[in-house]
Every structure is written in C-alpha cells, then in structure tokens.
C-alpha cells in the first residue's frame, strides 16, 4: 500500500505530540511534511521563561532536534509560513512558493498574542511574548538595563516581568484588574502574589488602564488613563491570546473563535484535522498545554487508524513558573449556591488554600504558598470522587491527613500540655491562661485578654482561648457572647478595627488574608464595614471600593421601592434661597419628577428620579450652587437649625449661623452610621437638638454641647458633653467628638450606641479634658476631609466618573 501524504502546518507543542503518537502506532503509514513559520525545530514553548531569566539555554528546551526529523523521514520547512490551503486540489502553499499535496492535513497554527490597539502600539520596542524571537528581543533590550513596562498581570506577563527583572531591568507591571491573575486566582491569593512580586523589586500597578504608548519612532513611555506617565525602554504586551484560525477561515472551514473540531479533532472537512490553541471544541478554546496533549493523542491515534478514541474537554490546572513563587489553581472556584468553601489561612507563613466543593465533590482549588498537595487535589477534581463527611474535615490538610480520624477540637485542646504556647504574639501558655481563669474568676474572652494578654494582638488564637474557657467553665461559658462581624469571621468589629491599624492593613484582600477570613471575598455585611474602616484609618492611601458600598452610596441617591431614586441637595443649616428653589422647580419640571417633599431634616426631597437622569439632574443643581446632601450615606446628613438670634425674640446666639458653619465644616465625611446634628437658639429647642447624634443648645453664656440622643428606632434624650463660651470652641469640641466616633465606632453603630459601649465619660476625657488629644483628633479630621470634601455629584455630572452606573446597555435588535 502506498503511503499517504500527511502535511502539518505549524510545528508547535501540539502537533509534535500528535506525530509522536502516530509514529508509535503506525510508523510507516504517512509521508510527513511540516511547515513552520518559525525558523526552528519544535521546542518546549512553556520553558521560554527560564530562558528569558537566564536559568536555561535554548538548547535545553528543544523537544525534537534535527535528528528526530531525519530518523522519522519528516520533511521540515523551517521559516515557511503557509499562506493558502486549496481544498479542491488538496495542496498547501507556503509564502516562499513551496507547494505540498496532502491526503490528510493538520492545522496547528497555535494562537496570536492580543495587542491592545492603543495609540503607539506599533512603535519599535513594543514586544509580545510568544516565541524565541520575542525572548531574544527582550534579552537584547535588557542588555542596556533600562526600564521595562509589562502590560498584563496574568501568567505570561508576570513570567516576563520576573525574567526581565532577573536580567537587571527596572520593571513595572500594569494590570487592569484590582488583583493579579484574576482568572486563575481569587482575591486573597492574588493579594499574596502581588506581595511576593513586589518583594522581588517589581513595581505593580493594578487598576491601570493604558491610554497610550509614548514615543516618536521608538517607545519612551506609557501613559495611563489617570494621567500617570511611566518611562519605558521596552513595553511587553501580555494581555491575552487569540486562536490563530486564519488559514482555516480562508479555506472555508467552519470557524467560531477558533477552528471548530469534533471529538476526533476533525474540522468540517474530514481530511483536515486541527489541534492546539487554534482549535475551538464545544465552545472552549485553550491556552495551556495539558489539554492540547490530550488532543494530540486522540488526533495521532485517529490518524493511525484507531476509531474508538475521543477528546473530552478536560479540567486544567495552572502553576506560575516564577522561581520562589508557589501557586496553584485548578477547576472552578467561583462561589455559588450549594457550593461550599473550605478555607485555610496561615498569615505568618503566607499560606492560603481554598477548596470548593459541590455535592460532596471537589470542583476547584486555589493554593498559595504551599502547593505540595496540588496534584492530589487536581486528581480529586478530575476523578470527581465523592468526599465523605469525615474526610471533608481534614481535606484541606491534604494527602497526609486523608482518611485520618478527624480531631475533636475540644479533645485536642484538652490534650495539650500545660506549657503549650497558645498565644504566639505574647508568649502565653495554656497553663497561664487556665490559671488566670481559675484564680481571677474570668468568664469571658475580654477577661483573659486583660489578665494574660493572650489573644489581644493578632487575635488568631481567639478560637483556642475560647476553647480553654469552655473547657474550664463548662456550660457557664457562653461562646456566643463574643460575636464575629458576620459569618465570614469570628473576629468582632473591635478586633478588626484594632488589627487594621496594628498590622497596617490597607486593602480589603489584605484584611481578609491577614485576619484569616473564612470566605474568599466576604459578604454584603463585612465588605461595607471594611471599606469604611480602611477609608477612615488610611484616608490618603486607601482606594474606596465602590463595589463594597450599598447602592445608595454608590450612586449618591436613595433607591426607592420602584427602582427610581430620590435626590436631596444640601440646604446648609436648613436655609435656602429663591435661586435654589427656582433651580429645584426647574429641575422638577425638566425631568418630570413626580414628587417634591419637605423632609424631616429641613430640606427638599425630589422623589422618583430615573437612574439615567441622575447625572443631568445633578448638573443642573450644581449649576445653581447646590451639592449632594448625603441623604443616602453613612455620613454627615443634616444640621437642623432654628432661626435664633437673627429673628427670634428668645434667641440667645446665632444658631442658624453655627449650624451652617458646622455643616460646611463636617459635610462629606464618612462615618460608621449616619450622623445628624441640630442647633437650637435657646432651651425651647425648636430644632429638636436634644434628640440628635450631636446637638447644641445656645444659652446666654455660651453653648451647651450635647450628644448621644436618638429619635428613630429608639428614643433617647441627649447627654451633656460640655459647655463652652465661644462658637469657635463649640466647633472644635464637636469636630473632635465626630472624629473620635469615626475612629472608634463599629459600622452601623449610631453615636448613642457607641457612647453607651465605651462609657459616657470616655468622650469627655478624650475630647474635653485632654487638649492634646483634641488637637490630634482635629488634625486627623482635617487630613481626612481633604479628600472627602468633594461633591460626589459634580464628579459624576461633569467628569463622567462611574459613568457605567448610569448607562443602560441597549444592544441593537
């Protein structure tokens, strides 16, 4: 039987493996001809990173040397790009005019790097990362030790960055998303990765949107959307790949994103196969080598005449090949109903592991810092083996524990020797804690903290201390007493606030990692709280996370039951003018706003505004000098006033003026819960100041400053904080009080509840008696106001901030 002709287009990893499979089974079935656009033999593309970093030479990563082609009688055209497939004549033609006839054809053209079409993307010095030529270009550029900017913080980008850094370049990675490698890693692992990348001297800028690549004929820098300019001698684009299905399309084969194939890797023309990254199979495309090898095996066997082989879309796993960075991810780790998370964090070792189970089966795994069990978990994912309840308890500890008897935590604590260290931070032993509980009659965590310091630093031993309390006290210990913020953590608000400062945690993923959150990205309860705490504690550094805010604070208006919004502009101290009222009237007409109402807070509410209209409504109100009233926020709301000495026959001071001054000074600040003030001109108290969060009652000799009132869910008269002689001093005391509350309050805890928790004289000590502390509080408030006192409406009405919030997508029908 005469040999059939097999032609292969592309000489990458996938067809290389397919030929091995074929030759093993049917060495004499075909005369094989390969065309490769790259002028070289088949090599291990995934090992280009070690070549870039200098850890390996090209020779070491060759898969098939020249001898292999000779041994198997293969004709290899190096540096021949195929430009045409003629399916009628059954031939392919290369750019150099070489024509080869085929009986069977394999298209294995891989993929092409995606290039963001920003201005400047064609300049010399803009590189991609795909083949040896790219590596050579990078190595050449690295000789001059200049600056490199890598666009893309995924697998390829980070490997390129690490390689260039190892070659002595100054490297910055730009990543569009908030965390690195977000396709493979969840936020927590992404945070640890960023820390490790930075630790090796590579700058990382997340949320970086590239606007332009600068330079005349050669790259000189990169300009970001936010105006940042970064100098650069080379720019490496590693933002993704696209299946290279061009030839298939030209030849009229069925294509979608890639060349469509069946389970035998045949295209819509049964004589033409396709394997590798150029393929699309059951809506999947591929970017890792393991599934391509599966394809190659099926293709090779089918060509050899086997008919019972079929490709099945497999699970994939990822590892990053940057020396010293240990991460692994596999399967599906999106959270979902009926899915369960098992999370393990060891902050001191920088270890994070998360397993996702569904129907008692492992479906996904993310690991950082300790990936020894990666293969074990990956196998469990692939096999879909059921995991019984006992095994589940120790699953996260990996293979070593698999099947072992689960430990009863109480028994485990009871079994510890007296000198076992419980609190690592403060070196407190079990014996010392048990002794204190017995001798001091301690009944709760706070008592143990006060007497032994155990669990008072990082808090991670809290669970152990509680178990010791339970062990010692039996039923007398109420474990439910110290409440966690939400089901994502056992730490209470107080612990979290303290640790954010003590450990200088400055992002939500950092808090969740270091404080060992039990969920991967929190919930609707803890996210807004953390966002507030971080904003309050690091006002100049923290980037407000819009997605951790409730809708009202995100779009700066109150959502109504029908999905429309209400708009309440500030009326400083309840004062308004003809100009403002006219502007409001015009806005109501122009946007057909159905209701206008005087609120209980001395201002006007426009109800029923369509979301899309909000920016335009704000623009008109802004034009008349009005700004957001924060009627929607955990923030300063209203300062009600009465007419005071200006008009009232009983008025003792200018209550209206003080109210306006307070509102102008305090507006814009975010607070644990909403804050409402009022200033009354005399004890008749027409502004209802004695049921507000902070109130002032003016008297002949000065100003009584009140606080901790309530008239909502609870009704409570205020307490007197102090009495001062001047308006200036009233401003100071009130501002310092507000800042103290901002720093100490738990999220959603109104001032009266906070005061009740910390004691009424606490505020008096900190704000009235300790003048140094008052000054420090005032200084911190000023710093925080610098960024906070910007009208959020103006930014959205005129500068287009958060525009996506207000625009509905309307695809053409």
């Amino acid at each position, binding site marked *: 039987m005469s040999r059939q002709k097999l032609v292969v287009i592309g000489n990458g990893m996938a067809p290389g493996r397919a030929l091995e499979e074929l030759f093993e089974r049917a060495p004499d079935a075909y005369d094989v001809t390969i065309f490769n656009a790259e002028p070289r033999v088949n090599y291990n593309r995934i090992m280009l990173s070690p070549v870039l970093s200098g850890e390996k030479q090209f020779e070491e990563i060759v898969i098939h040397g020249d001898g292999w082609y000779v041994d198997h009688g293969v004709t290899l055209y190096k540096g021949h790009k195929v430009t045409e497939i003629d399916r009628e004549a059954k031939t392919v033609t290369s750019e150099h005019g070489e024509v080869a006839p085929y009986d069977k054809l394999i298209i294995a053209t891989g993929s092409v790097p*995606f290039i963001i079409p920003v201005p400047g993307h064609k300049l010399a010095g803009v590189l991609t990362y795909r083949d040896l030529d790219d590596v050579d270009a990078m190595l050449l550029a690295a000789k001059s030790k200049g600056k490199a900017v890598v666009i893309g913080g995924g697998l390829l980008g980070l490997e390129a960055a690490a390689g260039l850094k190892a070659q002595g370049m100054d490297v910055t990675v730009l990543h*569009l*998303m*908030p965390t690195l490698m*977000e*396709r493979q890693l*969840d*936020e927590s692992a992404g945070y640890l990765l960023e820390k490790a990348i930075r630790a090796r001297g590579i700058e990382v800028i997340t949320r970086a949107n590239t606007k332009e690549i600068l330079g005349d004929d050669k790259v000189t820098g990169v300009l970001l959307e936010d105006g940042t300019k970064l100098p650069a001698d080379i720019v490496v684009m590693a933002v*993704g*790949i*696209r299946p290279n299905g061009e030839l298939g399309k030209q030849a009229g084969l069925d294509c*979608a*994103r890639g060349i469509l194939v069946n389970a035998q890797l045949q295209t819509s023309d049964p004589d033409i196969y396709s394997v590798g990254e150029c393929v699309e199979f059951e*809506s999947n495309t591929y970017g890792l080598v393991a599934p391509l090898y599966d394809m190659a095996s099926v293709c090779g066997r089918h060509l050899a005449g086997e008919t019972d082989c079929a490709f099945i879309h497999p699970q994939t796993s990822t590892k990053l090949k940057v020396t010293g960075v240990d991460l692994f991810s596999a399967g599906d*780790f*999106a*959270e*979902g*109903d*009926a*899915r369960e998370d098992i999370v393990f964090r060891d902050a001191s070792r920088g270890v994070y592991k998360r397993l996702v189970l569904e129907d008692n089966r492992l479906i996904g795994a993310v690991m950082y810092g300790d990936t020894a069990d990666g293969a074990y978990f990956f196998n469990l994912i692939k096999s879909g083996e059921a995991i019984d309840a006992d095994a589940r308890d120790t699953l996260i500890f990996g293979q070593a524990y698999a099947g072992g008897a689960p430990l009863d935590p109480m028994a485990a604590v009871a079994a510890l020797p007296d000198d076992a260290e419980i609190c690592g931070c403060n070196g407190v032993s079990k014996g010392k804690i048990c002794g204190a509980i017995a001798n001091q009659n301690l009944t709760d965590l706070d008592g143990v903290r006060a007497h032994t310091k155990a669990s008072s630093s990082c808090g991670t031993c809290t669970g152990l201390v509680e178990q010791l309390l339970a062990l010692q006290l039996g039923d007398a210990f109420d474990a439910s007493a110290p409440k966690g913020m939400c089901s994502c953590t056992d730490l209470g608000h107080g612990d979290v606030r303290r640790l954010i400062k003590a450990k200088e945690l400055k992002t939500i993923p950092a808090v969740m990692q270091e404080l060992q959150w039990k*969920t*991967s*990205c*929190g*919930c*609707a309860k803890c*996210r*807004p709280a953390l966002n507030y705490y971080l904003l309050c504690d690091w006002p100049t550094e923290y980037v407000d996370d*819009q*997605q*951790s*805010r*409730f*809708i*009202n604070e*995100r*779009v700066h208006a109150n*959502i109504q*039951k*029908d*999905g429309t919004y209400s708009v309440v502009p500030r009326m400083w101290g309840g004062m308004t003018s003809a100009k403002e009222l006219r502007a409001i009237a015009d806005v109501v007409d122009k946007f057909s706003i159905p209701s206008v109402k005087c609120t209980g807070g001395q201002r006007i509410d426009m109800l029923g505004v369509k979301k899309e209209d909000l920016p335009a409504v704000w623009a008109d109100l802004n034009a008349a000098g009005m700004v957001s009233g924060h009627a929607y926020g955990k923030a300063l709301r209203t300062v009600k006033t009465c007419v005071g000495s200006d008009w009232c026959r009983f008025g003792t001071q200018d209550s209206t003026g003080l109210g306006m001054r307070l509102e102008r000074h305090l507006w814009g600040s975010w607070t644990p819960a909403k804050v409402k003030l009022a200033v009354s001109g005399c004890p008749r108290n027409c502004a209802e100041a004695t049921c507000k969060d902070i109130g002032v009652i003016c008297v002949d000799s000065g100003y009584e400053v009140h606080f901790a009132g309530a008239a909502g869910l609870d009704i409570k008269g205020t307490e007197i904080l102090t009495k001062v002689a001047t308006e200036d001093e009233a401003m100071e005391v009130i501002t310092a009080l507000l800042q103290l509350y901002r720093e100490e309050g738990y999220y959603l805890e109104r001032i009266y509840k906070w005061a009740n928790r910390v004691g009424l004289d606490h505020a008096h000590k900190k704000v009235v008696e300790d003048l140094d502390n008052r000054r420090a509080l005032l200084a911190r408030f000023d710093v925080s106001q610098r960024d906070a006192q910007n009208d959020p409406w103006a930014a959205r009405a005129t500068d287009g901030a958060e525009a*996506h919030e207000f625009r*509905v*997508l*309307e*695809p053409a*029908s």
Partner: protein
Amino acid sequence: MPSRWIDICDLTDIPVRGSRVVRFQGAEIGVFRTASGDVHAIDNRCPHKRGPLSEGIVHDGAVTCPLHNMIIDLKSGMARGADEGCVAVYPVEIRDGERVHIKLSAA
C-alpha cells in the same frame, strides 16, 4: 420561542463585583461579573418585591437585593438561605476573551 445570542458589551464594561443593566425588546436583564471573573445574566427583578437586583452588592456568586436583602444566587437564579423565590437566568458566553454575549428568546 426562538432564541439567539446577542453581543451586549465588552467584559471591561462591567466592573468586577459589579453589574450592568441591559434592556432588550422590553426585557430588563442584570449582567453581573463576580470577583472570580464569571459573568451571569438574570432577570433584573427580585422575586420578593421586584427590587432591581443589578443595584445590589455582589459577593461570591450572589447578589444581595438592595431593597430588603434577599440573596439571589447568580448561577441558579434561586434565593439563598431561608428565602424562597427565583428569577430567570440567561446563558452567557465570553467570546474572543472580551465580548459578552447572552442568549435571549427573541420575538
């Protein structure tokens, strides 16, 4: 009813842990992007009192309704926890790594 795929936006048009609203032939659909990068499309009306789900906080694979805090699973459209109710979900595909397509029943 015949259905078809509709190209609605770029992946980057939807903020991570955020959402967009699509209006198409009278229907209002919330399109969500989770922290792990998955995109889901569901009817934008809470089963409780028709709250606009697209305005809720997105956490893990779910959204908390902005009106009364019902938690809706984005993948299944079912209410989580003790609540009952569900919303329609629409198939989503990301094509070319960036274009979000959803499958709608078109008249």
